[in-house]
């Protein structure tokens, strides 16, 4: 299905990541957003508030992030494509409802424009320290998808992808920006609506008597419905059976909770999103994501100039973690260098996937600015010594 032209600002623009993300939501078909102001994310919803009344939809600023993160889910069950936007402290507040979305298989998008933390931290400065939280922040066992754009263009493109994946897998998708990507201004090309692929909601065609809201379909994710259509369905965060009724026994728990993670398995493997280059002859590979990958790009350039066979593996879908790809890389190179704007988060996933086959060298940073390319270059040189 193609994007609805009403929401597509076709053209060549000069936008920052936050603004491009907003345009992505509109192109993807989002017509409802609930938000709460928090630096450095607020511009996404400020632009949405400004654009949506002429596109045809609603933005509501809720009283807190707990309200925003659940209001979007109410809207989804009412039939909307919906999203909310936040940063660290708000992301923490939203955790219960991210778990609710995962448990009830509610397709929706959470944008986190990461900033320095913990706590109030550095509201106007970048970090990438919520990556583990995106995966594990809510209680219990569940799965989510997380995407990491590294440019305003990707803030547009991956937002559309986020909505599509949410619909396909009936799962909440985390769009992990950072303050730098969110506030950097670059060229953003928005194609014509017919060129933008949008996944329609997988509404069931089965009649109410036959439809089971939590029975997995071919891709292990159930089909969807919405209130008001006579399905008389029930949604609960309690462990539930295929009808959605509370069914609190071991068998139901095992079946449901495992499926919530395993339904996403293809994204760890053949459907993982990444951007790789110069791997064929590589002796060391820099594994990075988000804004750090832009800095790493410079370090890789310098490394090649010095004769080091350095390759790039840029993670775009961070969760589920592309373990198979990293494992295969680790078997072919001496070392994997993992720069992050945190004290080591995704590097642990890399190390686990590498399983000792290659050295894993973190380049940590407490946050507040991007790395100096020299820091990453130093690690690359160290890797091949």
């Amino acid at each position, binding site marked *: 299905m193609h994007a609805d032209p009403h929401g597509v600002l076709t053209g060549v623009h000069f936008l920052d990541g936050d603004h491009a993300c907003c345009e992505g939501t509109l192109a993807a078909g989002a017509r409802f957003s609930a938000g709460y102001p928090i630096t450095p994310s607020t511009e996404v919803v400020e632009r949405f508030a400004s654009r949506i009344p002429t596109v045809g939809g609603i933005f509501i600023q809720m009283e807190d992030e707990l309200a925003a993160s659940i209001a*979007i889910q109410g809207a989804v069950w009412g*039939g909307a494509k919906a999203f909310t936007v936040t940063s660290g402290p708000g992301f923490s507040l939203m955790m219960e*409802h991210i778990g609710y979305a995962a448990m009830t298989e509610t397709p929706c998008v959470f944008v986190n424009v990461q900033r320095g933390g913990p706590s109030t931290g550095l509201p106007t400065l970048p970090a990438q320290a919520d990556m583990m939280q995106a995966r594990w922040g809510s209680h219990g066992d569940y799965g989510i998808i997380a995407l990491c754009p590294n440019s305003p263009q990707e803030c547009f493109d991956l937002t559309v992808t986020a909505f599509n994946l949410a619909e396909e897998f009936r799962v909440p998708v985390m769009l992990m920006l950072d303050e730098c990507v969110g506030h950097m201004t670059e060229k953003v090309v928005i194609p014509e609506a017919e060129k933008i692929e949008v996944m329609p909601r997988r509404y069931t065609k089965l009649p109410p008597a036959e439809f089971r809201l939590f029975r997995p379909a071919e891709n292990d994710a159930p089909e969807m419905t919405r*209130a008001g259509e006579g399905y008389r369905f029930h949604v609960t965060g309690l462990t539930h059976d295929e009808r959605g*009724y509370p069914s609190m026994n071991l068998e139901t728990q095992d079946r449901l909770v495992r499926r919530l993670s395993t339904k996403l398995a293809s994204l760890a493997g053949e459907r993982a999103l990444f951007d790789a280059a110069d791997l064929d002859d590589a002796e060391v590979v820099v594994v990075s994501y988000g804004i750090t990958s832009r800095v790493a790009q410079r370090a890789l350039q310098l490394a090649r100039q010095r004769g080091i066979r350095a390759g790039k593996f840029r993670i775009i879908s961070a969760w589920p973690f592309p373990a198979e790809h990293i494992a295969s890389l680790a078997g072919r190179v001496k070392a994997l260098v993992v720069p992050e704007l945190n004290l080591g988060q995704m590097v642990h996933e890399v190390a686990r996937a590498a399983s000792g086959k290659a050295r894993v060298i973190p380049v940590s940073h407490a946050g507040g600015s991007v790395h100096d390319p020299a820091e990453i270059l130093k690690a690359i040189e160290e890797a091949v010594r």
Partner: protein
Amino acid sequence: MNVTELENACEVPAGACNPVEPFLRMERMPHIWCPGCGIGTTVNCFTRALLDSKANLDKVAVVSGIGCTGRVAGYANLDSFHTTHGRAIPFATGLKLANPELQVVVYSGDGDLFAIGGNHFIHAARRNMDLKVICVNNLTYAMTGGQTAPTTPGEVISATSPYGVFEPAFNLVALAEAAGASYVARWTTYHVNQLARSMKEALAKKGFCFIEVLSPCPTLYQRRNKMGDGLDAMKFYKQVSKVRNGAPTSECALTKAGEIVVGKFVDRDRPGYFDLLKGQMTASLGDRYAEPEILC
């Protein structure tokens, strides 16, 4: 040895059906509520209100929070949502905004709506969001074992106030009115006909409507305080309730053994959220304003 044959069985016409049953997921009966709990009674009233208002049941959605009353969503044969603790109202807000054709009813308990959910309650009332909020007030957190709620009157014993509650309790109807609710009423589970009528009025009225229903919790609230069983509570409601329609809500606080003022206290017209939204948008944007087309 138990004897299940009643002494006098009454002749029942063929095909006679309890009018509440079409509204329930009968395959999930029996429900989890205790003997003498009043939540089921409120469900009968709600059913009657739906019937009398000739509601299109496909368009009625029930949103609950967590707690004993929160379980109503699971038993109602409607599109129903058992959400997170305290957050039924913002969920319902999103649901209603996405599809205004839906009649969205929030059915939850006193702790859920007014402790953890307090902030959401006042903002939805402030906005005059078109929601019907039914609060079954059993003066406690029943599901988790009878802890102190913001409505628990001093000086009863509760699970978390073993020496007696000393905090002042909320006056829910005053709070609702102050926050901006368009319709505010209080009844008890004794007042089945009046409650059903209030629910019907709320269903017909646009805007934020709030109905508080006092209900027994014999297993926890009452047992700890030697207040008898559900029937004793019901008799107490009958005895001490005074119907004062239109009474100032500030004078309607509940006390441990004092008078229970019931009635319809507030029924006013305030501009609805959608009216305000559309009014402001068209004033600012003229014909550039596009009517929301939210459903995907």
